[in-house]
């Protein structure tokens, strides 16, 4: 059976709201409008305005209210129309949600999910196209998840809602409409994925490629192209950015001896940078080539289509980097 990511998220929300009356959804346009991206379609009708709450466009206010409700023991799911707008509320995510358990020596727990589309969208310019994975993942106290497929979306969102800690759940607008095959197990209402565990999407032996969210799809496409050239790439879908599955990444690199990290976010201090550091620290002796990083260009997102394409990783970038790691690429003329 095939399922769209949008349906996967919607069904996960629906099932968790049905299973636990403490779960409620709040955010801009989640109710009567049925969700800016229709993720919450039908939920207002099913659960009523007490549990599906349309908020004004005031992120700091409603995020603080969500966190306060979690202090009391409810399980809020706070939707950001996009994670760009979470910047208005980042103080509550970092200072009010992530740190309270620690500061109170465990008295206050914060079972909340902050979710919404993250990363580069299409043609919306710099303020609506940014990946915040490395921002949130740098903060202890938060768990940060990034689903790729419908299986990921269902399993990770259900895990996030059931988890007793604050979870930042980074979706991708451009994946909402994509369909993926799902098994009967994935469709079962008890289905849940473990937080902190990466998934090997494709096994390989020559080079490890790590990616998350939309870039997993690109990495898989790159792997197919590489296979034609006789390069066997292992694709790791990180799923969880914090905790980061260092053991899985290191085990893979120890097998392949080569690493390419892929992400849409800015390169400096990015998720790839952290993965590189982990490999250098733990598996330096196993490397046969320098680590390669593919990331968003180090510029604010431009609007013009040709520039935008240059600002986000493309499949050919991943292929080139993997070949370089395997000593099979020719240097680009422009770079000489």
């Amino acid at each position, binding site marked *: 059976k095939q399922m769209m990511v949008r349906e996967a998220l919607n069904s996960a929300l629906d099932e968790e709201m049905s299973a636990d009356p403490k779960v409620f959804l709040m955010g801009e346009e989640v109710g009567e409008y049925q969700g800016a991206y229709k993720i919450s379609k039908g939920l207002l009708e099913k659960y009523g305005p007490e549990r599906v709450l349309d908020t*004004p466009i005031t992120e700091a*206010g409603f995020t*603080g209210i969500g966190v306060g409700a979690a202090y009391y023991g409810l399980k809020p799911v706070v939707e950001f129309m996009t994670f760009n707008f979470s910047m208005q509320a980042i103080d*509550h995510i970092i200072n009010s949600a992530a740190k309270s358990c620690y500061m109170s*020596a*465990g*008295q206050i727990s914060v079972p909340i999910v902050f979710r919404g589309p993250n990363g580069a969208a299409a043609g919306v310019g710099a303020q609506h196209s940014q990946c915040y994975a490395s921002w949130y993942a740098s903060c202890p106290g938060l768990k940060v998840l990034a689903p790729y497929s419908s299986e990921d979306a269902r399993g990770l969102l259900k895990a996030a809602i059931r988890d007793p800690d604050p979870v930042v759940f980074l979706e991708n607008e451009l994946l909402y409409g994509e369909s993926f095959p799902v098994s009967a197990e994935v469709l079962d209402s008890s289905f849940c994925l473990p937080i902190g565990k990466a998934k090997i999407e494709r096994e390989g032996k020559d080079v490890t490629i790590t990616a998350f969210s939309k870039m997993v799809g690109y990495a898989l496409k790159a792997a197919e192209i590489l296979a034609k050239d006789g390069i066997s790439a292992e694709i790791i879908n990180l799923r969880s950015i914090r*905790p980061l599955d*260092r053991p899985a990444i290191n085990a893979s690199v120890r097998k392949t001896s080569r690493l390419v990290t892929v992400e849409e976010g800015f390169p400096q201090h990015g998720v790839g940078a952290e993965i590189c550091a982990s490999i250098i620290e733990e598996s330096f002796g196993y490397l046969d080539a320098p680590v390669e990083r593919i990331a968003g260009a180090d510029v604010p997102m431009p609007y013009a289509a040709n520039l935008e394409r240059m600002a986000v990783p493309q499949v050919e970038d991943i292929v080139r980097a993997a070949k370089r790691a395997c000593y099979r690429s020719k240097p680009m003329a422009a770079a000489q």
Partner: protein
Amino acid sequence: TSTDPLTIETSLPFTSHNCEPPSRSVETNPQELISFFRDMATMRRMEIAADSLYKAKLIRGFCHLYDGQEAVAVGMEAGITKKDCIITSYRDHCTFVGRGGTLLEVFSELMGRQGGCSKGKGGSMHFYKKDAGFYGGHGIVGAQVPLGCGLAFAQKYSKDETVTFALYGDGAANQGQLFEALNISALWDLPVILVCENNHYGMGTAEWRAAKSPAYYKRGDYVPGLKVDGMDALAVKQACKFAKEHVLRKGPIILEMDTYRYHGHSMSDPGSTYRTRDEISGVRQERDPIERIRKVILAHDLATERELKDFEKEIRKEVDQAIAQAKESPMPEPSELFTNVYVKGLGTEAFGADRKEVRAVLP
């Protein structure tokens, strides 16, 4: 001391905005008045002792003292129950004690010891007592107001028929997120009371230099408000009782407590560059919350001057004992560095400064 009812007038009338103010006649009894005296004197002594401990370098970092403002903490508790929630700023020592926190927990926390209410991991600004509805202790100015509205949301959602008091200072009263949260609270009829403890200075900035309108009880516009003499514990009690009933039926209200802090903003502030010594001593002489209750007790012959002095001596001893005991409390175990990062750490590895030397599996 008896619990025979006694009615006492508040020192000043309430001023209201968009609501009928409560009566100035406050129902109380001798036992309550004596407890007001004892509790406020304990808080006062505790804060003065914290000042000394800070100067002796036994307390680190920030330390914001509450002396002068005690009537707010004590009067509020008299008007509500422990099922109601309170959330406040970093000036939280006395609010914690009002909720039933002990002196030992206070001093242990201030000195960063295991016996502290946050096991030494929170510090002066991060006291909590969830079992008595106290949700902290927040260090970011104004952030506790939306959080408090969230607590009230959860109370209403759970049909608990209880309310939340969200306390903030006149400095925080200008924060944008306060108005965002108030708007939502009014839209959703949340049972939240915004309590502006107006001590007239946000750090060193006088209220009129920070607020175009320092009439904080009116700043909710469409939300009713009440200005209260925050130096009169009985007026605070009356206002909080009134506010609790109001919000359960009609949604949020603002209480502006006109109060005063004798200390500077924090320990690094002598509190004398932006206000005059005369102003401070004038408040002490004319409006001090403890002296006011002392006068009421004496005027009604509920205790003798001697008995009140004896209370104060006892309190001094209690505070000294708590400090001595707190000093005996050990520092947190090094292993505590890695606890409480998460409720469920999922067995993730976390690292110390030198990750090859210090690493731990999160519980």
